[in-house]
Structures are given as structure tokens and as C-alpha cells.
């Protein structure tokens, strides 16, 4: 049972985002980067499968050198191999990223390919299904529970007001949703062991692709803009619950027109 887990490195969710000088990228100064939270569920699931059935867990990241840090952390949690594709992922659109990842995945033995259901920050939720299409694999998206048996994989997919249980043949693409598992922290032993694993690093050309296939393609950022600062509205005293309730209902009726 071999898995590939695609790891996106994203700004810490605590980050107060500032816009960079070109107005099209965020200001990366002082940003602390983390493994995108949904990718942690993906990684944990792959590690659990490996612990049960053996095989390798390869973590794969496309981006600048700092991405190696995210891969290193993933090794410390229990991934067995790491592949870094160097390149300016920030200038690629999602399909460009998917093309790079698909080409890289082909070079690694695998039964399942894991993604986060969404890269926290880009908030696209695009790359996983795109890779599935490029590789001709089935996809089970936004999965909260996974079972693997006899060449088949069964995932519980979260949809509005319901859950679908979907069966797919392997190899397949799985995108992880919160609830799938409780990701572990890296142990000291894991951190030490990870230091001994070399991160394999390749360029886009090593994969047989060209920068022009990937960068500045179909979707380009024109500008970034901060939302208008909300000023905060009125505050009222709730010591008298009945009076407060009356005032809220007046607001809902007259201003929100919700009642």
C-alpha cells in the first residue's frame, strides 16, 4: 500500500495578511508557514494505512525552497519519503500546479493519492480533482472517513445535509476533510529519524515540463484588496435580558428585515 500525500505550505492561520508592493501577491515578510491544516488529515490517514499494511508514504510539495520545511515536518510525523519540486508555485494557476503534481506523482509508485480538501489560504479546492482528471483516476472529495480493502477504497463524502458513501477502484484521489482522523504530533524520535531522510529535489524540467506550461496560464491575479475595515456597531447592555431581547428583535425587524 503506497501513498502519495500532496502537501501545500500556507501562511499560519493567525497571520494578519498584508498586500505586497506589486499589489498582486501577499507580503511574505515575517510570515510563518505551516502545513495546510487539511493536509495534516491527509498525511495522518496515509501514515495509518502504512502502519497497517506497509509500504511507503511519499510527501510531495511544489514551490520555493521553504517548502522543504513542510516536507521535513511531514517526515517527522511519519512519512517515509519526500519529493520537492522546485518552482514559483505562486505564479502558477491551480491547473498549472496540478500538472506539476500529476507529473511528479507518476514518478512515484502509488495506490492512493491524498490531498487536503482545500489549501487554507488559496481556498481553491481545485488541485485534488484536477490531478485526478489528469491521471484518469476516480476522486472521492471531502472525505471524513476512509476504508481500504481488496483493491477498493470507500470514502464518506460530506455534502449539504447528508453524507455519501462512495466506493472507488484504486488508484484513486482522496481529499481529506476534518473529522477523518486526529493527526498526531511529531515525536522526538520521529524528528530525529526524519533528519536521516534525504528530500529528493527536482525541477519542472526534470519532470519533462516547461515553465511556460505552468506559469501565468488561464487564471491570473489582477490585484489584491483588503476588505473595508468593519467599524463595529452598537453595543448594548444585556443585564436585563427581556429588554435586550426586545431591542434585538427590533433590530432584526427594522434593520435586518429578517422577521
Amino acid at each position, binding site marked *: 500500500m503506497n501513498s502519495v500525500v500532496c502537501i501545500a505550505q500556507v501562511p499560519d*492561520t*493567525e497571520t494578519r*495578511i498584508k*498586500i505586497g508592493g506589486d499589489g498582486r501577491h*501577499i507580503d511574505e515578510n515575517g510570515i510563518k508557514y505551516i502545513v495546510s491544516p487539511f493536509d495534516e488529515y491527509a498525511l495522518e490517514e496515509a501514515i495509518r494505512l502504512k502502519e497497517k499494511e506497509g509500504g511507503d508514504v511519499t510527501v510531495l510539495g511544489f514551490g520555493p525552497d521553504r517548502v522543504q520545511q513542510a516536507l521535513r515536518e511531514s517526515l517527522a510525523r511519519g512519512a517515509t519519503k519526500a519529493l520537492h519540486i522546485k518552482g514559483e508555485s505562486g505564479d502558477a494557476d*491551480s*491547473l498549472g500546479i496540478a500538472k506539476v503534481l500529476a507529473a511528479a506523482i507518476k514518478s512515484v509508485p502509488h495506490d492512493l493519492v491524498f490531498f487536503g480538501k482545500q489549501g*487554507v489560504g*488559496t*481556498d*481553491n*479546492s*481545485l*488541485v485534488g*480533482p*484536477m490531478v*485526478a*482528471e489528469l491521471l484518469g483516476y*476516480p*476522486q472521492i*472529495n*471531502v472525505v*471524513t472517513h476512509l476504508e481500504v480493502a481488496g483493491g477498493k477504497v470507500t470514502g464518506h463524502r*460530506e*455534502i*449539504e*445535509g*447528508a*453524507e455519501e*458513501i462512495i*466506493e472507488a477502484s484504486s488508484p484513486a484521489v482522496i481529499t481529506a476533510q*476534518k*473529522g477523518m482522523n486526529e493527526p498526531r504530533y511529531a515525536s522526538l524520535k520521529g524528528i530525529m529519524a526524519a533528519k536521516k531522510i534525504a528530500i529528493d529535489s527536482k525541477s519542472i524540467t526534470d519532470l519533462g515540463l516547461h515553465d511556460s506550461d505552468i506559469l501565468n496560464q*488561464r*487564471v*491570473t*491575479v*489582477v490585484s*489584491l*484588496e483588503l*476588505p473595508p475595515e*468593519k467599524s*463595529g*456597531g*452598537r*453595543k*448594548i447592555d*444585556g443585564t436585563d*435580558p*427581556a429588554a*435586550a431581547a*426586545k431591542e*434585538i*428583535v427590533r*433590530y*432584526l*425587524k427594522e434593520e*435586518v428585515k*429578517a*422577521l
Partner: protein
Amino acid sequence: MSVLVFCEVLDGKLKKASREALSIGRALAAAAGGDLVAFATDAAGADDAGRYGAKRLYVAKSGGYNTETYTAAMQAAISQSAATIVLLGGTSNGRDLAPRLAARLNAGVASDVDRLEWTGSALRARRPVYSGKVFAAVDITGSPAIATTRINAFPAEESGGGAAEIVEISTSSDSKTKVVETKVSAADEMSIAEADIIVTGGRGLKEGANFSLIRDLAHAIGGAVGASRATVDAGWIDHQHQVGQTGRVVGPNLYIAAGVSGAIQHLAGMSSSKHIVAINKDPEAPIFRIADLGVVGDLFTILPALTEEVKKAKAN
């Protein structure tokens, strides 16, 4: 050229997300000088599709949602309608399908957009990124240009048109996936994704059983139940209810938060709500910085009083 909207039919009616996508699609078709057309897997959608301005409804009898069969069907509809813009309402299915379709057609796609305009050469979209901490304006070039629309961002407006003309398309049923079961949540559990009103509870509720205070108000006012991550992690409520950066990003007309402090990851998921009411006993709670109406007090006394008052107002 045309603008094609992926529509989902539920009990013979189009889902709200589909009606919203049709409404903005109509404006884009007018700007770009083409027809608005729609796709569904159920011919019952023709009345609604026409009412929202679609001239034709391409119908594929593909059955229930399946990524691969729907991708093939949409591909056929795009080719038959010569669509240059394709919109999908941002439901789970729309968001599952859009990237698959984009990769198949080597097309550009922007997800979860809350504004759309035709620039004359590109589809320009605005997307909230970093959970709404920043807005990105993006140009989608090439044909077709694909976007999924954020629910509640585009008002659904009828055009007064008659039923759309039905055009049947035949498609393949090949798929490597199969839905073996669909488990529907409790009938009274409205999803926060499409709700106009959300009532959210936080750790201030003290224990899971007290979510009944939130449910009672949600029920009285006709809204969905939301939750902060702290309450989800504590096991008080299912994560489908979680609002925030690692939950759902929502933008209802009214968001009521009780016992929620307003951590940056929570605010990110709900600050685009049109009206925000916060109930918190701590006057310094960050949630008050974005609340239109802040109530400083004890949720255990205010919520029951509010539920009663709402019931009274509804009865009148």
C-alpha cells in the same frame, strides 16, 4: 457563444445556488452578447431555469451525482451550446465538478467567487482568499472560462421567462466510482451552506447539552445551527456545523453568535455576513469589533428571552 449554468434540481425545483448562478449568468450573457443556457440531469428543472432566464436546458439522464458521468455530460453540453462561460453554484457537487471539468478542457477556473464581470476579453472574478482576509481580482482567460459562485453572494432574480426548451443529450455512464449509500442528516438540520440566517454557539455554552439554546433560537427564527471550532473539538456538535477558516466560510444575511470569542479563524469564516449580532459576557471580546449589534451579557438568560421574543414577533 453562450453562458452555461450547471443546475441542480431538488424536488422539482432548482437549488438556490443554481438560481443565483443563473441570475448572474444572465447578466454576463447580456454583457458578452450571448444566450443564457442551463444544464441539469432532470427535465423538471426547465420551468425554473426558464424563469431565471435560460433559453435552453440541456438534460442528461445521468441519474444521481457522479463526478465522472457528470463531467462527461457537462463536456457534451458545453460543446453543444458553444459555451464560453460556465458557471456552477458553489454546492458540494458544483465544487466537486468544476475542477474536474476544467482539467478535462484545459480551462481556467476560479472557485467561490462573489463578483463576476465580463471585461470584453476575460471573465473577471472576485474571490475571497485567506478566508476573506483579502479579496483577489482574477482574470480567467481562454474558453470556456469556468467559475463556481459563492452561495448568497449573488441575489436570485427571476427574469419572467417561460419554460426553457429542453435539449436532451446522451452521455456515457462509465465511472470508476459508485455511490453505495446516502445518509441524510436529521430532517430539521438545515445546512449552514445555504442558510440565510445562522445562529452559532461557542464555548460560552459550557456544555454540549446547552446547544439546545442555540437550536431553539435557530428553530424559532428559521435559521441553521453554526458552531465554533472549540465546540466541535469538544464533541458537542458535528463538524458540519463548524464556521471558520477550517470549517465553512459563510455569508448569510444574518449571523447571530452567542458565547463565541471571535478568534481570527472564526471571524475569517463569517465576517462577510450582512448583519452580525453577538452575545458575549466579555465586553472586550473581539467578536464585538465586527458585530453590528453587540449585546454584553449572559447568554443563558438572553437566548431564552430572545427565542420567546422572536416567537412573539413571528406570531404577529
